[in-house]
């Protein structure tokens, strides 16, 4: 293994990890405010990827406009699922919420299967995205460079919202105490809806990036990616946004490194996220950056 190959794998890991990170943030934020593992989140990502596909292939939009359509469409869908499915259950046992999330997940997967078929569709990647750059022997596509850069910018944006705006403070306060947030004259339900919107928008970015790098979309694509991003959120410490990003990178890097250095284990690449999940649950259930349940979040 020479230095160049090593660097090449690092770039790949960074790119893959960014996509997991983008999706993991949504899991962790919704968990923070509702204590809900939103199992429909991976499918929101799938819808985002499909909307990007429709934007380019059907509406003939430029890539940026299609991506915007995906982000806005997914954010709206995320907020709608909260309003229709989760909001009526605010005072119900958490298990009802969890079962509802699984229901929404099945609904989205099967609705897309019925209307658009289960056959993977080729994602129309714009030429400039698949353009190969060669930096001193280091070879990568424009899109695999774009993914981590956009992730870092979005992460900066999310942290700024959480720590510098009153809405972000309300999100953090909500993670601690819903009733007292209402006593501040704040509509807690509105804040929860904003969290769903933000998480779903990020998932859509992740979905469109995924479709750029592995250029197909299909209705079940959110299942495995969603589960791995969920594992990333738990590994990083569920409830912590920076933890989710860290967890995403750890799992992304592991996958890439395992395939690169131990090709004979390549068939097990999907298992590593879950090995990490089990190890974390065994030895540090709060995750790397996670706090004690009733203490600070984010």
């Amino acid at each position, binding site marked *: 293994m020479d230095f160049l190959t090593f660097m090449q794998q690092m770039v790949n890991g960074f790119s893959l990890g960014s996509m997991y990170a983008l999706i993991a943030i949504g899991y962790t934020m919704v968990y923070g405010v509702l204590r809900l593992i939103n199992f429909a989140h991976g499918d929101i990502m799938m819808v985002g990827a499909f909307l990007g596909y429709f934007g380019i292939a059907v509406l003939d939009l430029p890539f940026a406009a299609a991506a915007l359509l995906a982000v806005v469409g997914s954010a709206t869908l995320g907020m709608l699922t909260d309003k229709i499915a989760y909001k009526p259950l605010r005072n119900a046992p958490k298990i009802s919420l969890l079962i509802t999330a699984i229901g929404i997940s099945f609904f989205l997967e099967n609705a897309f299967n019925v209307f658009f078929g289960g056959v993977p569709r080729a994602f129309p990647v714009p030429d400039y995205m698949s353009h190969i750059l060669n930096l001193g022997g280091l070879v990568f596509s424009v899109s695999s460079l774009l993914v981590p850069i956009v992730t870092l910018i979005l992460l900066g944006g999310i942290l700024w919202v959480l720590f510098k705006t009153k809405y972000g403070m309300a999100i953090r306060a909500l993670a601690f105490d819903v009733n007292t947030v209402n006593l*501040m004259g704040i509509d807690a339900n509105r804040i929860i809806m904003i969290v769903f919107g933000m998480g779903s928008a990020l998932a859509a970015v992740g979905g469109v990036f995924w479709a750029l790098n592995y250029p197909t979309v299909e209705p079940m694509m959110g299942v495995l990616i969603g589960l791995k991003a969920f594992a990333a959120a738990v590994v990083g410490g569920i409830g912590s946004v920076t933890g989710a990003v860290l967890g995403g990178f750890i799992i992304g890097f592991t996958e890439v490194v395992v395939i690169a250095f131990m090709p004979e284990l390549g068939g097990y690449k999907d298992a590593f996220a879950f090995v990490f999940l089990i190890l974390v649950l065994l030895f540090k259930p709060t995750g790397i950056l996670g706090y004690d349940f009733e203490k600070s*979040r984010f």
Partner: protein
Amino acid sequence: MISVKNLHVYYGLIEAVKGIDFEVKEGQIVSLIGSNGAGKTSTLAALLNSVKKTGEVNFSGFDTINHKTHTLVQRGLALVPEGRRIFINLSVEENLRMGAFNNDENYERLREVMYTIFPRVKEKRNQMAGTLSGGEQQMLAISRALMCEPKLLMLDEPSLGLAPKIVGEVFETIVKLKEEGITILLVEQNAFAALKISDYAYVLENGKIAMQGIAKDMIGDDTIRQKYLGG
């Protein structure tokens, strides 16, 4: 300011408040006193529509029936909840910011006012609120509630779990707030301390009003002395 008629509060099949009438006049301190489980906290929750209730609540000229908790707070009905419930994972200053969520234009001015009234809160403004002592947390909870410039400030057991000296400070603060023109509804188990600073008081017993009157007269009343003031 607020008048309540035939208020009932239910938790499932249990009736916690069984038809009470009371009112708080502008500029007064009114106390609801009574032992644990008498229905005091439930009454406050009912005023904010955060529990199932029946009856009529008229707050500064409008019927509160169709309002949710957060819109009532926006209209000037603020509560300092039992146990203070400050946001321990936010800084002291962020707690104040949350209190002024719908009051952006006055936030900075009010914050400085609170810092003048509560210098200890100012000293610790950049610390996590969870690091404050019980008394400081109570001061923070009161100033946080004042950040929305309420017409009526409701305090639920502000003396709970505090050292006697700190309890004195909290009650002095309440009197100071009254002098500033804030109307106060005070819920307390510490009947003597509450009666000393109140204008009018109601005694709750098993969800009903057992007695009411001018606070100063009640301190001298024999029944009250025996039941609530320890002889």
